């Protein structure tokens, strides 16, 4: 086995072109190898020391560019992400444990392609694009194009995800990501939902996007949602999510229970997103602030 520790993007891309596989935090690759999911690749290139992959910055149009090597810990504590792309911070804050969040990266989560990834649904509702680089240049693909199946992406073997591009947020917008979880750390999404909501001046929903975690072969976006009162849109999201989900039965839940709960998560995500859009601050992660996460005696 060979391991190249790359310090520049060019070195990393050259290694990929020569057949190496990238490793950043290793929280999927190494754990998977230990559990017999897939052996470690014979040739690895470590990308965790490439500084250019570890930055968060504004784009010219007011959007955000998050380097693929940015950790979940950085995302959950970044004040800009928390304020404007709250759902992504909600999601990163729920990943694994503090140790996982310090080494696990956004790029790794996205490119691992698990339908249970927490950051995926937020990226979809933000209309994010992944920037894929190779020795022959780079391209940007939207999330629906990137994920083609469980653990599979449309990226070529020599392409490296170098950044995630988030478009600028419209005024009066808010977002949230909720997931069903059986415990409060070291958990994998049973189901999850992200919502992004833009309100009209009088507080109704002008536009809404909802995406779902762990109910299909990839992260999927709910279709057919339109504006209206927050309550109506939340109810519509609940019904549509339950209707459009194609969950499986496994150790974590039955398909029937998943279908019910994805509706609940979608409704709550829309409600929380609308509250944030109206200017209310709900602490990151929103999972700890609504439903099961609430403190004793607090109203639901």
């Amino acid at each position, binding site marked *: 086995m060979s391991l190249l520790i790359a310090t520049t993007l060019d070195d990393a891309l050259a290694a990929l072109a020569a057949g190496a596989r990238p490793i950043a935090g290793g929280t999927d690759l190494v754990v998977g190898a230990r*559990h017999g999911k897939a052996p470690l690749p014979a040739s690895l290139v470590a990308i965790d020391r490439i500084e250019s992959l570890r930055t968060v910055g504004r784009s010219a149009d007011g959007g955000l560019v998050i380097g693929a090597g940015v950790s979940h810990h950085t995302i959950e504590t970044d004040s800009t992400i928390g304020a404007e792309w709250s759902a992504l911070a909600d999601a990163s804050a729920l990943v694994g444990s503090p140790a996982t969040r310090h080494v696990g990266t956004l790029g790794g989560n996205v490119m691992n392609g698990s339908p249970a990834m927490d950051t995926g649904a937020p990226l979809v509702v933000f209309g994010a694009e992944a920037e894929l680089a190779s020795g022959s240049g780079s391209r940007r693909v939207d999330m629906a194009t990137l994920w083609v199946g469980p653990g599979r992406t449309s990226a070529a073997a020599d392409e490296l995800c170098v950044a995630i591009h988030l478009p600028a947020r419209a005024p009066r917008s808010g977002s949230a990501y909720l997931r*069903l979880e059986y415990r*409060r750390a070291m958990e994998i999404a049973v189901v999850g939902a992200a919502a992004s909501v833009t309100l009209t001046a009088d507080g109704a929903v002008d536009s809404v996007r909802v995406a779902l975690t762990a109910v299909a072969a990839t992260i999927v976006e709910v279709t057919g949602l339109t504006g209206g009162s927050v309550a109506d849109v939340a109810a519509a999201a609940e019904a549509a999510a339950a209707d459009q989900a194609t969950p499986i039965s496994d150790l974590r*839940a039955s398909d029937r229970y998943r279908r*019910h709960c994805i509706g*609940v998560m979608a409704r709550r995500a829309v409600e929380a997103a609308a509250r944030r859009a109206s200017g209310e601050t709900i602490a990151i992660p929103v999972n700890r602030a609504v439903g099961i*996460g609430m*403190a*004793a005696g607090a109203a639901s």
Partner: protein
Amino acid sequence: MTVTEPHPARPAPRFVRADGPDKVTGSGRYTADLSLTGVLAAKFRYADVSHARITRLDVSAARAMPGVMSVLTAADVPDVRFGPFVQDRTLFATDVVRFEGEIIAAVAATTAEIAQRAADAIVVEFEPLPVVTDLEASLATDAPLVHGDWADYGSAEVVVRDRNDASFSSITKGDAAAAMAGADVVVSSRYVADGCHAAPIEPRAVLAQWEGDKVTIWTSTQVPFDARAGVCETLKLPANRVRIIVPHLGGGFGGKCGFHYEAHIAALARAAKRPVRLVFSRREEFLAPDRRREGMIIDITTGMRTDGTIIARSGWIAIDNGAYTADAGFFSQLAAMHVAGPYRVPNVSIEAHLVYTNHQPSGSVRAPTAPQACWALESHTDELAKAVGLEPVAFRKLNAVDTGAEGPSGQTYDEIGLQQCIDAATANAGYGQELPDDEAIGVAIGWWPSFSVPSGAYVKIDGDGSGQIITGAQECGTGAVMTLRQLAADELGMAAEDFQLVYQDTSVAPYDMGATGSQTLFNNGRAVVNAAGQIAEQLRKLAADHLEASPDDIVLADGHASVAGTPTATVSIAELAGIASGGELLIGHGSGQPPGPPPLVGSTCVGDLGMAAFVAPQFSCHAVRVKLDRDTGVARVLAVSTAHDSGTIINELGALGQVEGGVLMGIGQALTEGTTYDDQGKQRNAAMLEYKLQTCADAPPINTHFVQIATPDAGPRGAKGLAEAPNVATAAAISNALAAIIGRPVRRLPMTAERVWETLNEEAAR
């Protein structure tokens, strides 16, 4: 009977355990940390099928692999069938395998990777046999037998067996059928609990080395003397040629009780003529040991008068024994006691069956059978209260045992603190306050015996005045061994820090049963106090000579021996130790007579393994505030209030840790921890990702009150056990909180979010 008053002079001290700094800083060594020159790695070949006859076993390819130093099967070890209650187990599978984790062969090789490849290269062919997984079906007279030769097996004399029923037990008192027929209100319930795991953070490890005809085995066992006995029995060795040493133990929770792999590794090391080390993977830790917590089916019927007085109880219990009986022989009687419960029930008829299946064997996990049985009984008790229109705590106060009352098995209790526990736990929980409609406080009571068994220790004071306690007791994390320093120090007027502990070595210390049955402080405490008392005698004589006084007037305190009433007539214990080192050495040895079982009156127990009479019984009440997310069925424990009668508390800090750990384990068992099987009896969630332990982030605030009253026949200073009792009532209290919110109980354990959701749907459909 002796009554020991609680130590009046001093509040329970709070001291940090002596092994804490080593464990926290990483300087402590665990079995897997140890190495020896030339050490080989061991791997097992497991059956991987639940029930089958071996038609071909060929290890020749494995033996021929470079780096493989020994490969053993049943043909290579003495033909011994063992087991503490039923002799149904062999070290290696002989002709039939009965669960997926059964060991067919063991390999020792120069690296773990080679050993694994060699284990994989062993050729095994099977003829499938019918897999038995359903407890009720297993008891049918035409059920396939898990052990076709069951009738030929040896067993302890009192064990009542029949086909797939490995241990039947019953409690009969009065005439339950007649009383039930005359009852005003009768309620019947069925509750079903899944099995679960002890899940210690340290997977098992064993290291063995022979020198001549003697073997030393370092192992992660909770019961070193039991492990030694198992090695001696299966490899036909005398006890004095087998030395078991336990380095620091990374948790056990009962799962590391019993004799496990010490003999396999010793046999490998003997064959390879090199030291051999086994270190389990997490997956092996889930699949192979004969110590997971048993699944149970529990039927309870209770008859009452309209005022809520219980007049009769009947019960039927099936316990999943798994493929081998291990130490579960007494589970049927213990389960029957916990379904009877700490209540005044004049007419009782309870039957319990320990049922063979092709699942992993069950064994002592912290308070075996009690959390499940208590969950069923206490959930049933809230149904009883509802049926007669009584508030659940008032119903318990009315029917629970108290000092002088007769319990369900005919034992009349001396001083006990159950009623005080109920009062304290509910008051501290704020029971009765107005709560939002998605919250409730559930209450449950529990009990647990103290185990009275032989135990030994030595104490010595060296010439410089420093002391050593050499004890057979095993520290599995409870802190019980750590309290021994305090007991010796108090006996000698010295400080706990003056003593070092030498423990967990069978060739150095006298016998102790090990970290099992919450018995360490109860019995080894007695031994240490006796041993230290002998030295106190010696010191008083030495001081009397030195100070020209009578030994009876010598007081040992603050590191000095002084004449009572004459504080200026004093000599340091260190000086006396120096004098003794030139003459008769300061050595004490202690054991003491364990208290006998209390009498039972008016009851008949079939399959009586001594669990129907509780020596120095411990009582508890847990009141748990739960919040339910009605939309998803996810429950969150907001706060736990406990009260425990475990007699006198020797170290409050350690005792609180025991309760908090037990509660958290109980929350896991209540809500998230349960083993699921496929239709072939194989575990589906044998990994930490899918077996959901509670995490620190899930831990609620836990408030604990100790009811400390004078306890007859207790351990040192009136102490009872405390390791298992905190694990008994938590799941039950959570169940009652959920039932109060939902309107009906969740009848499956664990009460997972999905099961709670299903129960909510049933209630909504009503």
